[in-house]
Each structure stands twice: as structure tokens, then as C-alpha cells.
């Protein structure tokens, strides 16, 4: 009998509503800070300060950025497909918010699960929702009616197929070791040892694929601000453009959350149990720091180099990892 997520565990509706509001508030409170922290950190990585003019230590910079974006005209090209053009930035936001639901912030305490929802299909849900986000990019790029946007969208599509498989296979090892898809059960089964130790290969592959999933350097070809003028976002302006950027940071948080839950023991840490969400947050932010660190270090890969990496290195490695894990799980 596989330990599936506890489907018998039910909460009152009002608790669910409060939980979703809290998760929403916390994450959307972190996002703007993340943007300014990223810029400041990148500055420090390059011997400079980063933004420090708006408010104390530049902390009000995101407010100024959003204020500027909102005050801009929401421009739409004449030959754009209107409905899809508007839908473009909305889909990724929707997908990002949906993915937040399964990140486990803590165990069930006092009859309240410290997570949005514990779906039995856990990881599959993450992949399903994460792929919807890419429809946003593709639709946005195609419907702009611009060749640069279309090219950016094509690059996104090509990128999508070259890492998605390895990403799934990288997580399969963890799923086999814990025998469950539910993220809460997976965290529970890391009581003795974090899965990063036996599944280090899976972790590295997942993080590499995560860089590609979130369109971050060194895999930010869909955007490629230097050569493709932001790729699929070329024709977007104002807050529609801003929401694409917002989604990028939300996806970083989601991928960090999934990685922290699956490899870094989720909410587990020393101290009383009410510190659990703090531990989860600390682990997530450590991974976010890794994202920023890598962005400050690596140049953008070439288009074919990502393909080569995805198909010739990551996929065989992930498959081998799954194979070895499967044999060891059966033997031990």
C-alpha cells in the first residue's frame, strides 16, 4: 500500500479561504522585495551597490517600478490578435499562483495543514500547471503579430521540450524513494536524511532544468534582452510587461519551493514546530540566492547548447539516476 496523501483529512471552508489569503499575501509580499534584492545582490556581485535611492536602502524601488509600469500606456500592435494578446500575460500569472497551492510550508498543526492543498498527485500537478504557463509565453509571442515576438516564442517552445523530460525524470528518483507523489508525504519521508544526499544528481538536474523553466540565465534565450529585445515580450508594455516579469519571480519562488520540499527536507529544522514555515522560507530563499548567484556569474548559452545539454547530458544522466535508484530501492 503506497502512502498516498491523506484524502480523508478535510478542513473547514473558511480555513481554506484564510489559508489561501495568507499564502497569497506572503508570496506577493516577498515578490517585490525579491526584485529589489536581486538587483542589489547583482550589484554587490559586480562591486557596486545596486538601487539605493528610493526609500531607505532602496527598499521602495519596486514601488517606483510598478508605479512607472502602471502609468505607461497599455499599447497593443495593430495586427495583434486582441483576445490572445491580453490572455498572454494572464495565463502565466494564473499558473504561478496555482503552483503556490502545493508548496508545503509546514505539517498539520492544530487541525490546520500549513499548505494550500495536499493533492495526491502533487508533483504531477506542478508539471501540469507549470506547462500552462508556457502557453502564456507562446500565445503572447504569437499573438503580438511581430516577428521578434514569434521568434522568442519559438525559442521558448524549443527550450520547453528540451528540459521538461529531464526535469520530470530528476524528480522521479525522489518519488521512488519516498513512494509518494504528495509533497507533504515526501517531506515526511525525509526525517532521517534529506533527499539531496542520495539524490544529488537529481537535485543538480532539477535545478538546471529549473533555471530553464524560469527563463533565467544561463537559459534565458526566450527573453535574451540583448539580442532578441525581450523575445516574446517585445510588443508588451506597461503592466502587461510587468506581469511577465512578476511571473518570472513567482516561478523562481515556486521552483525553489518544490526543490526545497523535495530535496532539502522542506519544513524540517531544529526548534519548535511553529518555526516550520520559517525554515521552509529560509531554504527557499537560499535557493533563490543560488538563482541570483548563477545569474550574476554565467553568460547566456547558445540555443543549440541548451538543446545539447538537455538531450545529450541531462536526459541520459536523469535516466541513469532513475535506473540506479529503482534498482537500489528494490534491492535495499
Amino acid at each position, binding site marked *: 500500500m503506497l502512502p498516498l496523501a491523506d484524502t480523508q483529512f478535510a478542513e473547514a471552508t473558511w480555513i481554506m479561504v484564510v489559508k489561501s489569503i495568507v499564502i497569497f499575501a506572503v508570496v506577493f509580499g516577498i515578490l517585490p522585495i525579491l526584485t529589489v534584492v536581486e538587483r542589489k*545582490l547583482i*550589484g*554587490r*556581485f*559586480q*562591486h*557596486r*551597490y545596486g538601487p539605493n535611492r528610493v526609500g531607505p536602502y532602496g527598499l521602495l524601488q519596486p514601488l517606483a517600478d510598478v508605479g512607472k509600469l502602471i502609468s505607461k500606456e497599455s499599447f497593443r500592435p495593430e495586427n495583434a490578435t486582441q483576445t490572445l494578446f491580453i490572455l498572454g500575460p494572464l495565463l502565466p500569472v494564473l499558473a504561478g499562483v496555482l503552483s503556490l497551492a502545493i508548496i508545503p510550508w509546514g505539517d498539520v498543526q492544530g487541525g490546520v495543514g500549513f499548505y494550500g492543498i495536499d493533492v495526491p498527485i502533487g508533483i504531477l500537478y506542478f508539471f501540469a500547471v507549470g506547462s500552462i504557463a508556457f502557453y502564456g509565453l507562446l500565445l503572447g509571442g504569437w499573438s503580438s503579430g511581430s516577428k521578434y515576438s514569434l521568434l522568442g516564442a519559438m525559442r521558448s517552445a524549443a527550450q520547453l521540450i528540451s528540459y521538461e523530460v529531464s526535469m520530470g525524470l530528476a524528480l522521479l528518483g525522489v518519488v521512488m524513494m519516498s513512494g509518494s507523489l504528495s509533497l507533504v508525504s515526501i517531506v515526511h519521508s525525509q526525517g532521517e536524511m534529506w533527499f539531496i544526499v542520495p539524490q544529488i544528481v537529481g537535485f543538480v538536474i532539477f535545478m538546471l532544468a529549473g533555471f530553464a523553466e524560469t527563463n533565467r540565465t544561463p537559459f534565458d534565450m526566450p527573453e535574451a534582452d540583448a539580442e532578441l529585445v525581450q523575445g516574446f515580450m517585445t510588443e508588451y508594455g506597461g503592466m502587461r510587461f510587468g506581469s511577465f516579469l512578476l511571473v518570472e519571480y513567482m516561478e523562481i519562488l515556486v521552483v525553489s519551493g518544490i526543490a526545497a520540499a523535495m530535496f532539502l527536507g522542506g519544513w524540517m529544522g531544529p526548534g519548535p514546530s511553529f518555526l516550520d514555515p520559517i525554515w521552509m522560507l529560509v531554504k527557499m530563499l537560499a535557493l533563490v540566492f543560488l538563482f541570483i*548567484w*548563477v545569474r*550574476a*556569474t*554565467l553568460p547566456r548559452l547558445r540555443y543549440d547548447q541548451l538543446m545539447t545539454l538537455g538531450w545529450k*547530458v541531462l536526459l541520459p544522466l536523469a535516466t541513469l539516476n532513475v535506473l540506479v535508484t529503482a534498482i537500489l530501492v528494490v534491492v535495499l
Partner: protein
Amino acid sequence: MSAAQDGNDFDPRTASYLDSIEVVEVQRGPEPGGLGGAYRAFGETLRGLKTTMARLIEGPLTIEYPEEKTPVYPRFRGRHKLHKFEDTGLEKCVGCSLCAAACPADCIRVVAAENIPGDRVSAGERYAAVYEINLSRCIFCGYCEIACPFDAITMGHDYEMADYDRRDLIFTKEMLLAEPVERTPLKSEGE
């Protein structure tokens, strides 16, 4: 073997310049691709991450300009200053116009006048009734300072002279004589 390499019968008419150049073998890295290539790429990535982390630890090198200024050297040539004798309070400038003659940019205008006994302005016979420096033309070469026989004009350290109007850049004698607000820090010893 060419003639130049023998050393004995070197003939510059036939010698090629190539003979005297040492040919250095180009150092090439290992071929990219393959498992070794992936391994090396991974190692180099880690090395890059280490480099950027070291930069983070070192901290910013920025000098936040309007609040914080780059210190200048003691002999930095900034805005001019006119001087007075400290004991008598008389102007050092005697209106000889040597500075105006030395000025390659022709930006100094001096009109001299006779000192009236009892109401002396300068220590000499004459004084500068008008002394103007057009700082929009000045090239800060310091020749005026060298030409002055009485050390009446020297170059200060201030370099913040931007203004909204060209006319405001013509500095009169009063402006040059006034004790300037020295806003530029000096470099300390050995800096």
C-alpha cells in the same frame, strides 16, 4: 636555414623580418564536447561562481559621488584663487597682466589702475581694477599661476563649476578673492 640565423653573414637586404621573430606555439585548450567537455564546463562553472562570490564578499567599490567625492592630489589644478597678504590685507595682484599674456586660452582679462596713496588696494604701484577669468574657456593649464611674479593667483582644488548660464562662468575679482568653500577632499599621504 636562413642567412640571419647563421649570424655571420647577415644581409639586411635579403633578411625577412620573420627571421627575427620567435614563433610561439599557440596554446590550445582541449577539444570541446564529450564527457570531458561536460566535466570541464562544470568545473569552470564552479570556478566562475567562486569568482563572483569573492566579489560579493569584497563589497562595493562605488564612490557615491554627490555625497562622497573622489579625493584629488595636492597639485590638482581646479578653480583659480586670488590671494591677499595676510598681515596687511592688501591684494597680491599688481595688475601686471602677465597671467593674461601667458594664458593660451585667452580667458583672463585684467584692467590695471593706479593705487591712490591712503586708499591702497594692492601692495604695488598699480592694482587690478578688473580681473576676470572666463571659466568656460579656461583649460586649467596653470600657466597663469606660473607666470605670476607675486603668487597672486593659484589654482585651487574645486572642480564643481557647472552652471546654467555661460555668463555665470565669468568669475570676477570679488568671486576669485572670496575664501572659496573648499568642497573637494585631498588625497592623504600615499593614497
